[in-house]
């Protein structure tokens, strides 16, 4: 955990109210995507990140706009946290021509290079490798590369090979595990030897921390320390951010494998509720919070409406090329 002074220094001048707005944007986006999926407007499958907003937003709050981020198939929040506009993101989900990837990528594979999002990956450890490679570039460019990935990915070879290589080359990488305690339907503790994801970093002599992933301030403080370490040339960090998804793994999963009591306990610690009350107690007026919430709702609503009005790509005029010229 970041010490108190580091946390205070990291907090100074940080726009937590804006970050709260971004978290709410993700929550509203996911609620909207859930509704549109049930209405048949979103196709295939979709993996919602409601409940996990503080990890992506807290991490990206510590990154510079031109730093790199690699996310996962549960990536809507990753893209929004990094700065992707909700309208082209919603259009991508809807398979429209105005999507951030022209409707070619869909829910699981969003890429937004303009905002430093190198990709979201349908292979659970893919983001770890993408961030490793981006960190090779970042080291020469004075940037940092961060990966977001789930607890399931820490049992893939990607996790171990890439943490080792990042340390060997002292790369400016920040590996952020969103431990939501379930790999698909299987409890993390039943398939993860040691059940201590942060502890795995010790084997690679990589600094690590276990972080309350529902606490925006805790995630930001830990991420800010990791980003500072990376930027100073002192190599990678592993953060295990403990959090919980409010929906099932994917669209068809009611998540009945999770004990009711456990779900209730986590819902009490909803990251949005925690952030709101912390902002209030820090002296942010109720009216300012309400204004941010209202503006965020309006932004999301108009983004989704615009996306729904956008045309589908026309197969007749699609000029698909497999190769870059």
């Amino acid at each position, binding site marked *: 955990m970041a010490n108190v002074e580091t946390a205070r220094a990291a907090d100074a001048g940080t726009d937590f109210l804006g970050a709260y707005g971004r978290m709410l944007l993700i929550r509203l986006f996911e609620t909207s995507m859930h509704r549109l999926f049930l209405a048949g407007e979103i196709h295939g499958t979709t993996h919602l990140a409601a409940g996990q907003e503080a990890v992506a937003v807290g991490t990206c709050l510590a990154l510079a706009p031109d730093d*790199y981020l*690699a996310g996962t198939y549960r990536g809507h929040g990753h893209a929004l946290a990094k700065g992707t506009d909700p309208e082209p993101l919603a259009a991508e989900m809807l398979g429209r021509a105005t*999507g*951030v*990837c*022209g409707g*070619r*990528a869909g829910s699981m*594979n969003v*890429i*937004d*290079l*303009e905002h430093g999002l*190198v*990709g979201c*990956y*349908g*292979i659970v450890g*893919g983001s*770890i*490798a*993408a*961030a*490793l*490679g*981006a*960190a*090779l*570039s*970042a080291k*020469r*460019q004075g940037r940092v*590369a961060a990966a977001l990935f789930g607890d399931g990915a820490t049992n893939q*070879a*990607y996790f171990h*090979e*890439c943490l*080792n*290589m990042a340390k*060997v*080359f002292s790369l400016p990488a920040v590996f952020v595990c969103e431990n939501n305690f379930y790999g698909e339907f299987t409890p993390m503790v039943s398939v993860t030897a040691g059940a201590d994801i942060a502890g795995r970093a010790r084997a690679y002599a990589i600094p690590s921390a276990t972080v309350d992933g529902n606490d925006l301030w805790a995630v930001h403080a830990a991420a800010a320390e990791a980003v500072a370490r990376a930027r100073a040339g002192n190599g990678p960090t592993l953060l295990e951010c403990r959090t919980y998804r409010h929906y099932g793994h994917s669209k068809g999963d009611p998540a009945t494998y999770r004990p009711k009591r456990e779900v209730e306990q986590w819902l009490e610690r909803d990251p949005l509720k925690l952030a709101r009350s912390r902002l209030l107690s820090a002296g942010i007026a109720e009216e300012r919070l309400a204004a941010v919430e209202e503006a965020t709702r309006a932004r999301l609503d108009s983004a989704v409406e615009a996306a729904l009005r956008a045309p589908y790509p026309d197969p007749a005029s699609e000029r*698909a*090329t*497999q*190769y*870059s*010229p």
Partner: protein
Amino acid sequence: MSELEFRVAIREALAEELARDPAVVFFGEDVAAAGGVFKATPDLLERFGPQRVFDTPISELALAGAAYGAAVTGLRPVIEVMFGDFMALAMDSLVNQAAKFWYISNEQGSVPLVVRSAVGGGGRFGAIHSQTHGTWFQGIPGLKIVFPSSPAEAKALLKASIRDDNPVIFLEHKRLYSVKGPAPEDDEVIPLGHARIARSGDDLTIVSVGKGVSDALAAADALAADGLSAEVVDLRTLRPLDLETVLHSVSRTNRLLAVEEGPRTGGWATGLLGAVAEEGLHDLDDVWIVATDETPIPYSPTLEDAFIPDADAIVASVRERLRVTAG
């Protein structure tokens, strides 16, 4: 014209591209300090320093992933996956990420990376150090597959591969590393996707790639003594496949033999024959394939020599097929 050894051609191409473009980096297992297990890359570390040329852990998955991630963020990585067989470990980043990035990103960015590997049998390395993995990637849109046949071709094609903005799988046949041949023109670059006529002939077109081209050329010499004039087409790249050059050749010779060091099932030769039949059936009097048996590659010298199609096997197959008697 000066002579150039195949392994030196590889080294010169890397050195010239590293010198030309600061975005080019080269890394892999034992490629820097040790200079590569086939001694293709000595002195590059000394010349370009550890930021540009470096050794990695034995982590093929991370190696390919690092190359992909670096390529989409501004570098032009060349990696070595030592033996082609090890590419089974590296496939995710290449097949699922690198190959698809240009298309699914809606052309936001490209993936300029090259993966070099030593391939092919004849070295008594056994079943899992002798395969030719090009066809594992044959059906993946977005990838290019390059397989040079001579030192000059290797140098010019590797330079083109490094300058290409797409992920390139680059195959180097182990039995070619010590081959010497004429050096290419200074700074010659062969654009990817264009086959060449390695030898002109009238009676039969023999198509191959990599080491198969020198076998086909040797076979063509022997067949000339039989009074048979064989044209040899060097495909150079397996993906994209230059069908036009093959069709044009077949339109004159009316016979096509594809020689592949690998099993015919799922190989490039069957795909080529299918494409030629689709486009040029009226030109064809005969088509067939010389490939390997449908077993893993054996170790014992007698078994391996019998397994791999060489010049003698090509000659014997042509004589049998065309009922030609030895001249």
